């Protein structure tokens, strides 16, 4: 599996924590919007950027199996998730999806949320300790989720997705609506997921500056189309005030 959770476990054949996601002529019509693109992503962390309404979340939901494309093919490390006549259901894809608001289960405490998707055998295994340590969750495991701050809720949602042993983490705007300090802290946690837990990530964001240190590949979407794809160095230009996209001719 591409995303081993514990350090020292046998890694994947490719670079540790990377995954190959292929989107072949994906088309999904949601009038008046239409998603239509092809891309081949082979990276530890890839970011989907673009303005509101570009189709970033829709694309993430297609990969997660929550939306079925009208046509096209989605494969993950050679395994077909979507194709003509094939649609692997979300519950069988082993993809850790974290929506923008975290979507924690309000009737369960933090520990029960974390363990919801964990295989039974993994509930007391080192995976749990590793995730708690990396995301600094130890201080509020037995608390109700509605008493958590926004940053804590995001970390619990990340931990819950990680404990389901995903092949790929799908994060929808993980840093949005967080103030400067919390934003930086969560960015550090994402770096640790990449470098310590070696779980590959596909991150949706509308701000390129959020992921320029984190992502190896950036896909820029505009109106449901792939406007550009490349490394952060190729697509972004550092600015004293903010990181932004280079102008595309």
């Amino acid at each position, binding site marked *: 599996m591409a995303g081993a959770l514990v350090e020292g476990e046998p890694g994947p054949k490719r670079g540790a924590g990377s995954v190959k996601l292929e989107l072949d002529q994906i088309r999904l019509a949601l009038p008046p919007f239409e998603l239509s693109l092809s891309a081949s992503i082979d990276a530890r962390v890839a970011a989907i950027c673009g303005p509101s309404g570009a189709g970033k979340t829709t694309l993430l939901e297609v990969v997660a199996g929550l939306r079925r494309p009208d046509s096209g093919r989605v494969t993950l490390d050679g395994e077909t998730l979507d194709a003509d006549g094939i649609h692997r259901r979300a*519950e069988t894809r082993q993809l850790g*999806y974290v929506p923008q608001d975290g979507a924690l289960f309000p009737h369960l405490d933090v520990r029960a949320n974390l363990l919801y*998707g964990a295989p039974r055998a993994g509930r007391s295994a080192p995976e749990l300790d590793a995730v708690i340590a990396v995301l600094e969750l130890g201080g509020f495991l037995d608390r109700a989720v509605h008493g958590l701050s926004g940053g804590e809720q995001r970390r619990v949602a990340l931990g819950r997705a990680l404990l389901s042993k995903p092949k790929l983490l799908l994060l929808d705007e993980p840093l949005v609506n967080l103030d400067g300090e919390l934003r930086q802290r969560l960015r550090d946690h994402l770096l640790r997921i990449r470098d310590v837990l070696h779980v590959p990530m596909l991150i949706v964001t509308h701000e390129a500056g959020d992921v320029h240190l984190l992502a190896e590949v950036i896909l820029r979407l505009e109106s449901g189309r792939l406007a550009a794809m490349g490394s952060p160095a190729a697509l972004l230009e550092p600015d004293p005030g903010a990181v932004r996209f280079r102008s595309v001719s």
Partner: protein
Amino acid sequence: MPDPSQWGVVALTLRCALLAMLVMIPPGLAIAWLLARYRWFGKSLVETAVALPLVMPPVATGLLLLRLLGRRGPLGGELEAIGLPIVFTWRAVVVAMAVMALPLFVRSARSAFENVPPRLEQVARTLGARRLRVAWTITLPLARRGLVGGLLLAFARALGEFGATILVAGNIPGRTTTLATAIYQHVQLGEDGAASKLLLISVLLSFVALAASEWLVRSSKASPGRSAGPVA
């Protein structure tokens, strides 16, 4: 104090109303779930058909049930052939109560399901949970206050059921006489004392059921992430 035969009426009414709830819950939950979560051909028709007993005269609903479940009816004949006669038995009381209470339960349950954010169910699925586990661990717990509130409302409705019951079950002392039909009979016979005693019990039972339902509505609205309560 009510006499033993009146306590017998109360016991039969409560027993039939409880059984009616058990009969009604599985189809009620299924219909409410399908109405809340999916768009499908014929949805409006089913919505209307389920709500019909709310607006139709109860005796008309009773007549429909009599035609359906009577000895010569399409269902009644079959059931009688296997030793399960319905009309003018306690079973008819249960059926009448269930049919009349179903719309109230479906409306409340539908509202309770609609108040569970679909996003939570989607996330549960991406965590590997199959649909049944999602329903059992996410949807039903989050909707439970609205569901229980709706059930209490339906139970209160079943306790007071008269029009359909009198047609399909009659008023046979000790067998099909319920609180409502007993009160009617006592009033007809000029037995005001007996009618008043049953009236008091009827008011008390309905009051408790409705108060519990109202409490669940209020507490579900006050709890974040909980479903809304019953919809009358």
